């Protein structure tokens, strides 16, 4: 596949990720525990990481967090999305690159979800400047692992389908 095609498909994926972010904000996951989310939009960069490589995945994530972050919420919530999203995809790319411990898509998705949450949580700690809430990271991480497994499964099948598709070019 040539570069133009890759960039075009990445743009479509960026749009899809933004749409998923916005769509997900209508599902009241916060009723389970505040801050809990499925993170459907993270399927997109994770899939791209496997199909096109880290440069495309990180760029699409940057577009996604910037646009989706500005569409809903204020500057504080934008910072959460930004640090969470960028930390998550960068660390996933690095872990995928090393060959000592090999994770499957699901493992990488769990790592991504946990890092996403942790980065957002530390942003919250910095903004609130209060350590009373530190215990809450346990709740967030447990739900992040569950969400990571689910989005990892979705990514796994998306990657399979896309690899079949890209062979036709």
């Amino acid at each position, binding site marked *: 596949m040539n570069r133009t095609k890759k960039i075009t498909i990445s743009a479509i994926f960026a749009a899809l990720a933004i749409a998923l972010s916005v769509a997900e*904000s209508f599902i009241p996951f916060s*009723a389970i525990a505040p801050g809990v989310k499925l993170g459907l939009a993270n399927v997109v960069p994770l899939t791209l990481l496997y199909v096109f490589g880290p440069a495309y995945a990180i760029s699409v994530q940057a577009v996604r967090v910037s646009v989706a972050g500005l569409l809903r919420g204020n500057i*504080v*919530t934008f910072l959460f999305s930004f640090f969470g999203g960028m930390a998550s995809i960068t660390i996933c790319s690095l872990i995928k690159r090393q060959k000592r*411990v090999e994770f499957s898509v699901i493992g990488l998705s*769990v790592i991504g979800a946990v890092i996403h949450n942790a980065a957002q949580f530390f942003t919250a700690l910095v903004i609130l*400047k209060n350590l*009373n809430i530190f*215990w809450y990271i346990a709740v967030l991480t447990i739900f992040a692992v569950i969400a990571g497994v689910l989005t990892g499964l979705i990514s796994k099948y998306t990657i399979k389908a896309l690899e079949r598709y890209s062979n036709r070019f």
Partner: protein
Amino acid sequence: MKKADIILIVTLICVFLIFLGLHLFNDSKKSDILVIQHDSKVIYRESIHKDNEIQIKDRYGNITNIVTIKDGTAYMSFADCANKDCKHMGKLTPSSKKQIACLPNKVLVYLISTDSEVDGVTR
């Protein structure tokens, strides 16, 4: 799924369940001083048994949150943010071990115990 995946998932769940368990089952003294923090400054500090309604305003004077203190419980009765997470966080009572946070407006409501003279946790 690979072996590394399973080890990772099991370790994460176990470690954080233990951490959560330690927090929830740790005996602590009753805390009945309600503290409201806005933009990292403490704006209210009174007994939770004193009924009150605290309005939190942004720098333009618009009300962003209202904390209602009634019959020894405290809860967020109004928030102007989009997701309303803080309203879902329920009520604080002297024995609860949680806090109410409204991140978009940088508001945090929590309890401290009567005998701690200095608020050692807020920095």
